């Protein structure tokens, strides 16, 4: 799992609102940097990294909530949460499928067909979750979200 990036210029004595702007900018950048290839189910760690980055961004928005204009903050948080949920749905299937693939060879002979059928079902769910995720990680939508978050950061500074 990717480590949280350090926030440049972070100063413990600066006002909470200024720290809010810095942290949200960095956490937002991390989310968008991890968006490439996230729909590739052969490289599930990419999705995992984007999901972790999205969780950190969401946490930052929640921690620094009083620093942002309420309505704009609520809208931004709602969109980040929706992205996080869509990533989570795909991630659950990634984890389940990987677990099953890991233990399939150990299954008793009598259960192997059922395990195989379950693996097929999980693959299908993974595919569906991926389709549901695709609109959330479309470049246009991500660009719009990024703009919204940068405006939020700007508002915290002023």
């Amino acid at each position, binding site marked *: 799992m990717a480590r*949280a990036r350090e*926030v440049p210029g972070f100063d*413990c*004595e*600066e006002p909470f609102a200024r720290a809010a702007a810095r942290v949200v900018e960095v956490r937002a950048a991390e989310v968008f940097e991890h968006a490439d290839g996230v729909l590739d189910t052969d490289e599930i760690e990419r999705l995992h990294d984007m999901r972790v980055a999205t969780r950190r961004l969401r*946490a930052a928005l929640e921690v620094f909530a009083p620093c942002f204009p309420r309505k704009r903050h609520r809208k931004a948080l709602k969109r980040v949460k929706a992205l996080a949920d869509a990533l989570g749905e795909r991630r659950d299937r990634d984890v389940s499928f990987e677990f099953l693939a890991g233990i399939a060879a150990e299954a008793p002979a009598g259960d192997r067909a059922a*395990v195989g059928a379950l693996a097929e079902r999980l693959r299908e769910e993974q595919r569906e979750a991926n389709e549901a995720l695709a609109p959330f990680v479309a470049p246009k939508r991500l660009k719009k979200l990024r703009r919204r978050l940068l405006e939020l950061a700007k508002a915290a500074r002023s």
Partner: protein
Amino acid sequence: MKARPVEGLDPAAPLRPNAERIVRTRLGELRDLAGPALDPAASTAQHDLRIAAKRLRYVLEIAETCLGPEAKAARRAAKDLQAVLGEIHDCDVMLPGAWGIESLREMLRTRRELLFRRFVELWREHEARDPWSALESAFTG
């Protein structure tokens, strides 16, 4: 599980006193949720504790450099809790889907039991070392 609201945050005040308030609230949540989560059958309580550990971890990631070395130990402790509870949660997610495959269900139940024991050991270790109180003692506010 909704996060407990944090009282008295001031956007104009420095980061440190605000971070201390948030961390105190998150630590309170963690402590309150731990007891119920120590019941092996309490999967909802374990899930809630995982969320609480995650919230604490993420605020410590943000403010760690302002809160002293105790914050690093507390963050690591929260991360360890989140990790083991996350694996328990994975078993809880997979079990319903394994319906009808008894060997798989048995594997998942056994795995869950082992992970739960690991969680209890970890919580007892944290109680003994108490990184949470060490962090609070370091607060200036």
